[in-house]
């Protein structure tokens, strides 16, 4: 696996003041491009556009964050959290990492021409305190934010405790909104429900028109990055279903896709040499066993181990996911994206690097199962996730070989969630959202505070794994220095091997297709400057400022 | 001799039943002169209604005329096209159906049904004509605005007859117009028809299976059996001297309210299945006078005095050993 690691700076290191510096190698031509051209995005939203752009509305912020609203700092998940300054040209952590000071960029203007100031930043964060509904990432409640203050062009966020893990949220995922708009009218009185139909932001684009079928963005002429964006228009049609979106991508009608396309080489790639795809992995798809003692079978270590040993993850990847999602490994560290944290040797030492059916059978025997007393297990999954269904069909076959009878229960999203969250299952097929380092996913999976008693809704630790030692390691991470952080993650992942709390099967990827006929500057495996799928926010903004039209260069 | 109005020759009608066709009217001949009242009797299912519909060319599948002609005022109705027929219908001959309940369109008022007819013929008729004919049959013209279901059975029958009189046709074909009525009502309706006929001079072909009913009203009588005409002649003549054993049987079978009370006997057996009639004479299996030739030879209509009868007993060229 190439293209990762290298000279990228992890979170916390001093940052460059030139936003385009880290991407200067991108886009082939290097440096500036002429403006012109447009891109059409094909990404199934499964709904028609409501034409709302409120960045605090979790249902619609995908259409505004990155396009219109920008964060303080961009954090690149694909480069282990490398940062790119955006509205903050720099930031510094206090030594104890419980306070951070952003330097607000000069010369930025809102798309309505008003100047952007530190006041806007403070306003944005303060509103989140006053209106809890705006505080999507629970910064004031969960992360321990205590104050936001401005001094000149500096804005300081103070926390109760070390808060580095939340940097990704508050610096990267919160879009800054203009105080002069948001402090009047409905935006002020009901900021959470305000529709924000004509959003004013600092981002590269503004909304030109919106209908239920299509959002059309135009370049923001006031954009603070000189010469950018190169593209003058973005079309974002509302696709309701995969097939039409896929067809449009294959035909080149849409150039930027975030789609799962079955048989993609044949259906998409072969249609044109300019059709490309890249699926960078960011998190795990896993069999989540219920570790709670109330589930006597799956809380048995030997059973979990047997499953882990029995799986041929390469096959699952190849057949179930058509090879698009790479095989995962039992450490829970996504490779190659986070290879830096990946302890390959530990994996091999435990024998999890390849399937081991004998070991699996032996474990099952030790747990008291045999041909006459077969281990029968139920796994829940979500109706409509056909690749999961396919993977499970493969897994079912694999487990059958060691004498485990797996029956797959496809549930409607709602029922699935309910069962998963409340722990009403034996096995669940599930995936989590990653973060800029494996820490984020591992914390979600293993931290006992993210769990809940059976019957209560757990936030992310659905397996109900509870190990004080792991909790301690996770707690240490926030205040640790980068090298220690790497060590901590390796330590945490060793428990994945030891306790097998969850059993990763494949790595979930960003579905990403791009067409280079007229457009270039795409994120690629060699230049992973942002998560490439258009549904990633605010990464979409990074891509949009790097894309340029080849025909416009002539 | 009054002029010949209707001349039916060799008329044959078949019902297509999928397997063997049912010959419901079998080579029937019939003559009607202007102003004449011809009664057609015969037991149920012998093809009376079918004959009427064939004459008026109103059959629809699965029935079809498979032979013969119907000459009305010299024109053959069988080969005439729908358009010409439509023009003649009702103006030259009209039909009163078996049950008035079903023959009147339930969703149109009586008046509207009159108007329909008038419009279909772009005949210049008086606006008052519907009211006039209704009055003729003894119905208050306010019923022009009524719907069929608002009238009693007798009134509906009368309304039908009024409708048939609309253009004063030459011939009115009536299919058991009184079968739904009780005797008193039936009687008064018959008397009315007879009076109108006298007044307006149209001819009537009147179907019933009630022998006694026609006895008082009809001039000529046609007795049908199993799709065939078995006896034809002046009503009085037939009643006085039935020449066909079936007619005789019929006349013997009903009691009278006057005169001496005599024990009566019916005709044993049941009418034949028209899809596979018995060989030879169709009445032969039930006939008290049958002899050995009867199952062998199909009788024709033979002239016997004033009447015609389809019985081998009257066949001129047959040596009748039976006698």
């Amino acid at each position, binding site marked *: 696996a190439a293209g990762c690691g290298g000279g990228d700076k992890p979170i916390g290191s001093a940052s460059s003041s030139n936003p385009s510096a880290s991407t200067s190698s991108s886009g082939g031509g290097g440096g500036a491009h002429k403006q012109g051209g447009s891109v059409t995005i094909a990404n199934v*939203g499964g*709904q*028609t556009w*409501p034409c*709302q752009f409120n960045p605090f509305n*979790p*249902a*619609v*912020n995908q259409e505004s964050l990155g396009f219109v609203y920008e964060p303080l700092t961009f954090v690149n*998940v694909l480069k282990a959290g490398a940062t790119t300054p955006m509205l903050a040209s720099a930031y510094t952590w206090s030594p104890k990492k419980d306070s951070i000071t952003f330097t607000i960029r000069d010369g930025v203007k809102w798309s309505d021409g008003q100047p952007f100031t530190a006041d806007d930043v403070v306003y944005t964060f303060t509103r989140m305190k006053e209106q*809890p*509904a705006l505080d999507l*990432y*629970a910064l004031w409640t969960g992360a321990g934010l205590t104050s936001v203050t401005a001094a000149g062009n500096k804005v300081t966020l103070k926390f109760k405790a070390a808060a580095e893990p939340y940097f990704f*949220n508050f610096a990267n*995922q919160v879009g800054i909104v203009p105080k002069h708009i948001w402090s009047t009218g409905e935006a002020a009185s009901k900021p959470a*429900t305000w529709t924000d139909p004509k959003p004013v932001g600092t981002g590269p684009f503004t909304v030109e028109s919106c*209908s*239920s*079928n299509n959002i059309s963005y135009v370049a923001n002429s006031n954009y603070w990055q000189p010469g950018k964006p190169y593209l003058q228009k973005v079309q974002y*049609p509302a*696709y*309701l*279903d995969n*097939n*039409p979106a896929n*067809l449009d991508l294959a035909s080149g009608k849409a150039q930027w896709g975030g789609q799962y396309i079955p048989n993609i080489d044949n259906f998409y790639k072969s249609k044109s040499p300019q059709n490309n795809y890249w699926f960078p992995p960011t998190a795990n798809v896993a069999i989540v066993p219920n570790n709670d003692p109330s589930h006597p079978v799956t809380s048995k270590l030997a059973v979990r181990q047997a499953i882990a040993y029995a799986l041929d993850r390469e096959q699952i990847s190849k057949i179930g996911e058509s090879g698009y999602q790479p095989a995962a490994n039992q450490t829970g560290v996504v490779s190659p994206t986070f290879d830096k944290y990946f302890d390959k040797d530990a994996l091999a030492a435990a024998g999890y690097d390849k399937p081991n059916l004998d070991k699996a059978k032996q474990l099952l025997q030790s747990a008291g199962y045999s041909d006459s007393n077969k281990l029968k297990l139920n796994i829940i999954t979500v109706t409509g996730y056909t690749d999961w269904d396919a993977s499970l069909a493969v897994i079912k076959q694999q487990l059958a070989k060691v004498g485990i009878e797996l029956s797959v229960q496809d549930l*409607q*999203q*709602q*029922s699935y*969630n*309910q069962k998963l*969250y409340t722990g009403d299952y034996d096995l669940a097929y599930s995936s989590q*959202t990653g973060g800029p380092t494996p820490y984020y996913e591992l914390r979600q999976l293993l931290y006992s505070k993210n769990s809940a008693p059976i019957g209560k809704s757990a*936030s*992310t630790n659905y397996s109900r794994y509870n190990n004080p030692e792991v909790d301690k390691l996770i707690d240490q991470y926030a205040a640790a220095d980068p090298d220690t952080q790497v060590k901590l993650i390796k330590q945490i992942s060793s428990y994945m091997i030891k306790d097998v709390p969850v059993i990763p099967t494949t790595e979930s990827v960003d579905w990403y297709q791009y067409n280079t006929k007229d457009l270039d500057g795409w994120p690629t495996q060699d230049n992973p400057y942002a998560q490439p799928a258009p*549904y990633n*926010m605010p990464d979409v903004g990074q891509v949009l400022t790097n894309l340029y039209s080849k025909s416009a260069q002539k | 001799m009054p002029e010949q109005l209707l001349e039916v020759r060799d008329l044959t009608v078949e019902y297509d039943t999928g397997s063997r066709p049912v010959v419901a009217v079998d080579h029937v001949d019939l003559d009607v002169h202007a102003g004449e009242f011809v009664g057609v009797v015969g037991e149920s299912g012998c093809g009376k209604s079918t004959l009427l519909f064939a004459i008026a060319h*109103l059959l*629809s*599948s699965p029935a079809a005329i498979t032979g013969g002609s119907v000459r009305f005022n010299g024109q053959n109705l069988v080969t005439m096209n729908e358009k010409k*027929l*439509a023009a003649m*219908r009702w*103006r030259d001959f*009209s*039909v009163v*159906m078996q*049950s008035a309940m*079903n*023959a009147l*369109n*339930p*969703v149109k008022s009586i008046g509207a049904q009159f108007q*329909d*007819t008038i419009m*279909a013929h772009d005949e210049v008729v008086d606006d008052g004509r519907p009211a006039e004919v209704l009055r003729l049959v003894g119905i208050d013209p306010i019923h022009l605005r009524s*719907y069929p279901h608002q009238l009693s059975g007798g009134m509906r029958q009368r309304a039908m007859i009024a*409708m048939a009189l609309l253009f004063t046709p030459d011939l009115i074909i009536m299919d058991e117009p009184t079968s739904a009525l009780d005797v008193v009502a039936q009687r008064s309706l018959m008397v009315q028809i007879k009076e109108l006929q006298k007044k307006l001079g149209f001819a009537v072909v009147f179907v019933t299976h009630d022998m006694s009913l026609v006895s008082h009203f009809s001039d000529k009588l046609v007795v049908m059996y199993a799709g065939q005409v078995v006896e034809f002649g002046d009503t009085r003549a037939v009643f006085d001297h039935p020449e066909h054993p079936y007619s005789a049987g019929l006349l013997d079978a009903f009691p009278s309210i006057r005169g001496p009370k005599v024990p009566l006997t019916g005709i044993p057996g049941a009418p034949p299945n028209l899809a596979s009639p018995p060989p030879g004479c169709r009445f032969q299996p039930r006939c008290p006078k049958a002899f050995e030739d009867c199952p062998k030879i199909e009788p024709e209509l033979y002239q016997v005095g004033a009447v015609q009868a389809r019985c081998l007993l009257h066949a001129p060229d047959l040596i009748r050993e039976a006698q």
Partner: protein
Amino acid sequence: MRYLIRRLGFFVLTLWAAMTLNFFIPRMMPGSPEEALRQRLSKGGSVVTAEQLRTVLAEFGFDPGKNLMLQYLGYLKSMVTGHWGVSIGSSLGVPVTSLIGDALPWTLGLVGIATVLAFVLGTLIGTVAGWRRGGLIDGIVPPVFIVTSALPYFWVALLLISLFAIGDNPVLPNDFNYDQGLTPAFTGEFVWSVIKHGILPASTILVTAVGGWILTMRNNMVTTLAEDYVRMARAKGIPGRRIMFGYAGRNAFLPNLSGFAMSLGFVISGTILVEYVFNYPGLGYMFYNATVSTDYPLLQALFLLVTLAVLICVLLCDFAVFLLDPRARTKG
């Protein structure tokens, strides 16, 4: 008159009962709006807790903690007053009225026209087939349409797509209501685009729905033609066409009309699949979406709308029969 009052009473009572069901059934579904929303979000890379979402939803007017009976009363009130609230599903915060307002014209335009067209066409063809019983049309039409009436909606849709919309030179578009590049306006280009996009879905509905009407109408027609009054009309010399439509057709049509109203619920249901396959942004698709995202306000409004539409249609058809059939008028 009493008949009409009875009908109206029935209307109100049924509507109320259906509305009550409409309220409770969605609430018996597992999951909740906040979980639905949370699921959607994970794709975009944010981790938002369920509690946080509850706060957000409360802001949008959905309070799951409220007593169910109070919710019900509030619901009845809001349904009657037309304050249908805002979506709490995938279109979080959008007023339900505007969501429906956007989708309704398309559904009415496509599904409505296609359904009515199917009914009218079917009735006409059925009339002719029944009239010319045993003729060429009657020989071909019923068997063919027995087959088409048994075809699954979505399969016909797929077939049409594979015939006309897939391949190197698709003849017709297979999705959406108009080209995404266009802005709705009354221009030739836009109208043409709308028509082009409507052809396949409309044909789907037409092909599958018309058969049933043809067959029932034909059978009604045949039965009616056997009635004496039709023969009577012929005897009166009334021209064939007038008998066909004015006598037989009209009377055969009456039961069909009631049947149309009664089956409207089924028709609307079927169109969900059509809209789903063709990505047609109408009410059907919205219904599906609202269901999977537990969007109570939207679901309730849609349920109400459909129930009301069917009920009103039944009522109208009843009145039509009432007007057309004097027997019905005196019956009650």
